């Protein structure tokens, strides 16, 4: 039996790696995606276009404007001269935010009154705009603090001290790169397996496999092992790039990571084989992959957090192996996640793997009859 399985495994390896184009597709795109998406998939806010409409000639207004200019968040600062221009720059997305300093700003400030500074933000990008509002209010807070000190006001009664754990400078790539290790490994794993049975079906060679002495269980192993090794190798490559090219701190245990990756890939390959045994053509298999992969990415919490999803949808994310694996990878990279926490996220993947692999084997079986 093990001889037969061994032969099948070798055949599967050859079938996947023989074609030069297929080899390129397995190695090239994941690496390119790793580099482009690590930088592109960022919710960090940088290089924001800001416009300032300062109607006041006073010194205090000038001082405030200088503080906005000094901030590194704002790359281009455009000075406006009429109220009409506010609408123009916001409408045409020439600026994400406009700071409007009124005519009587300095006068009121010197008189001890509190002048109002208006900021107009583009709600078409409300996430970025809210973060920009945060930056602007911190600048104004600093200004207020200094004004208060000059006036001899008592120090503030209370202050907030923020400490960002696991990622003190809020580097976005520290989040994206570990997440991409999971995401790209998943895409490779599901694409190679989903097309493997469908291709054989289209070519008619799957029927030959079925009439051979191999049992469905042996076919399952023969199809799983090569995909596991290929996707695992790709995953390792991506991991190495994350650690050495992006210099993301890797604080946790490599053993935990690989144990978890094994069950993750088993779950993914189970899903791939399941899609593949349902599909009659490669095109259908491709569509099936797509129908699985897009929701899997969305529900994993990669693009936007799971906590923001509606209550009825949050339990559904527990069925998504990518959700568990991303928690593990990010946790091991940044938080040195202890083994019991890794286990808590790994057994659901093992359960998903058991279900999907069995279902795939049953489907081979059904076609046999």
């Amino acid at each position: 039996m093990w001889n037969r399985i061994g032969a099948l495994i070798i055949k599967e390896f050859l079938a996947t790696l023989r074609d030069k184009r297929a080899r390129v597709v397995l190695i090239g795109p994941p690496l390119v995606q790793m580099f482009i998406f690590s930088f592109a998939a960022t919710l960090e806010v940088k290089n924001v276009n800001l416009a300032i409409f300062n109607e006041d000639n006073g010194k205090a207004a000038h001082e405030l404007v200088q503080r906005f200019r000094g901030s590194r968040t704002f790359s281009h600062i455009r000075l406006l001269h009429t109220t009409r221009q506010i609408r123009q720059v916001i409408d045409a997305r020439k600026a994400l935010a406009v700071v409007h300093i009124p005519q009587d700003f300095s006068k009121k400030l010197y008189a001890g009154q509190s002048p109002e500074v208006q900021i107009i933000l583009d709600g078409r990008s409300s996430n970025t705009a809210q973060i920009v509002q945060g930056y602007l209010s911190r600048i104004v807070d600093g200004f207020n603090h200094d004004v208060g000190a000059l006036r001899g006001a008592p120090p503030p009664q209370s202050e907030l001290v923020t400490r960002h754990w696991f990622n003190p400078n809020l580097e976005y790539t520290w989040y994206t790169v570990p997440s991409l290790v999971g995401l790209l490994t998943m895409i490779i794993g599901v694409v190679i397996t989903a097309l493997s049975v469908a291709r054989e079906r289209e070519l008619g060679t799957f029927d030959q496999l079925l009439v051979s002495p191999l049992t469905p269980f042996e076919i399952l192993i023969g199809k799983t092992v090569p995909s596991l090794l290929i996707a695992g190798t790709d995953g390792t490559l991506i991991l190495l790039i994350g650690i050495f090219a992006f210099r993301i701190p890797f604080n946790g245990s490599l053993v935990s990571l690989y144990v978890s990756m094994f069950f993750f890939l088993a779950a993914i390959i189970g899903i791939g084989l399941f899609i593949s045994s349902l599909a009659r053509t490669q095109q259908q298999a491709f569509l099936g992959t797509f129908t699985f992969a897009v929701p899997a990415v969305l529900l994993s919490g990669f693009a936007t957090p799971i906590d923001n999803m509606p209550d009825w949808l949050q339990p559904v994310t527990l069925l998504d192996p990518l959700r568990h694996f991303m928690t593990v990878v990010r946790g091991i990279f940044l938080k040195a996640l202890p083994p019991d926490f890794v286990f808590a996220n790994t057994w659901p993947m093992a359960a998903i793997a058991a279900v999907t692999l069995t279902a795939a084997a049953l489907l081979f079986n059904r076609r046999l009859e």
Partner: protein
Amino acid sequence: MKGGSPRRLKALIAKEWLQIMRDPSSFIIAFVLPMLLLFAFGYALSLDAVGLKLGLVLENPSPQSRSFAAALTDSRYFNVRIGHDRRDFEDDLLAGRIAGIVIVPRYFSERLARAGDTAPIQILTDASQPNTASFVQNYVRGAWQSWLQLRAREQGREFRQPVRLQPRYWFNTELNSHFFLVPGSVAIVMTLIGAILTALVVAREWERGTMEAMMATPITIYELLLGKLVPYYIMGMGSMFLTLFVSVEVFHVPFRGSFAVLCLVATVFLMAALGLGLLISTLARNQFVAAQVALLAAFLPSFLLSGFIFEISSMPWPIQIITRAISARYFVSSLQTLFLAGDIWAELVPDILAMLVIAAVLFSITALKTVKRLD
């Protein structure tokens, strides 16, 4: 269009249409998948942090620290659990079950009462999710400021910052992230039909040799391309109407532009998308490669590089340059403007022009490649 005849073109379109209707899988791509994606995008994607899970540590509960706690628990942005030791929550932070811990230290009320002293409050965030971490910081700050104001009012002091900031959000006063994410996903759905469906179907024709058979007939290359495009254009527009309907009726996104302008912008975008699909199929000529390339060159860029979720201005400049070649980028920004702001030509005209240029380039390359094969 030399030697073109409307009758031949009509026959071609009819043939193409029959082919689409006969094959259930292209129908699924055109109508079922878009709906599935739009619902997945609409429900699963949200940047509105409502109910951020926080652990609040009151090391020494006192009236002062309780009044601050109330400011957090009353806010709809937080879902707060209260404890008395930070160790109660450290495991939760590690496991990612909470987004942050707010600590009101033992000496808080003492230092608050002492004149000239400052009582600190500490925030610890789980920065392995940096966006959520900065929202925790900003929202706690907001709650803390309203607490300070409330306190000042209670003590009969006038609490006034020297300068007050008055933020106003245009186009989306509720700050609902669905309002820009849903229009953005319409662009992704249309990329799916325009580029991916076309790429797959035309690649299948090359694979089966029916493309060559068509070329042996008196049909000109332009008629052939046009005959392919018209049915997919109609399907693309059909799914656009469907997604517009769902966006407005199910997700309650306002639509402030005019329908005619939306049709114009969608048409221009579909030209570019169909051009991309046609080019991919012409170069690949095989379904497997076409599928891979379509995923890489059409779907993922429309998702990640279009500015739909991830702000383009925050990307490094080489990637910003790449985004300029992606038609979805212009379509996403036009859609957000049409839905939320209205017909703002200063924004729409440059987008339309850019998409036209991209479409023209893609069609020229396709025409060149196809003509060569005819020789």
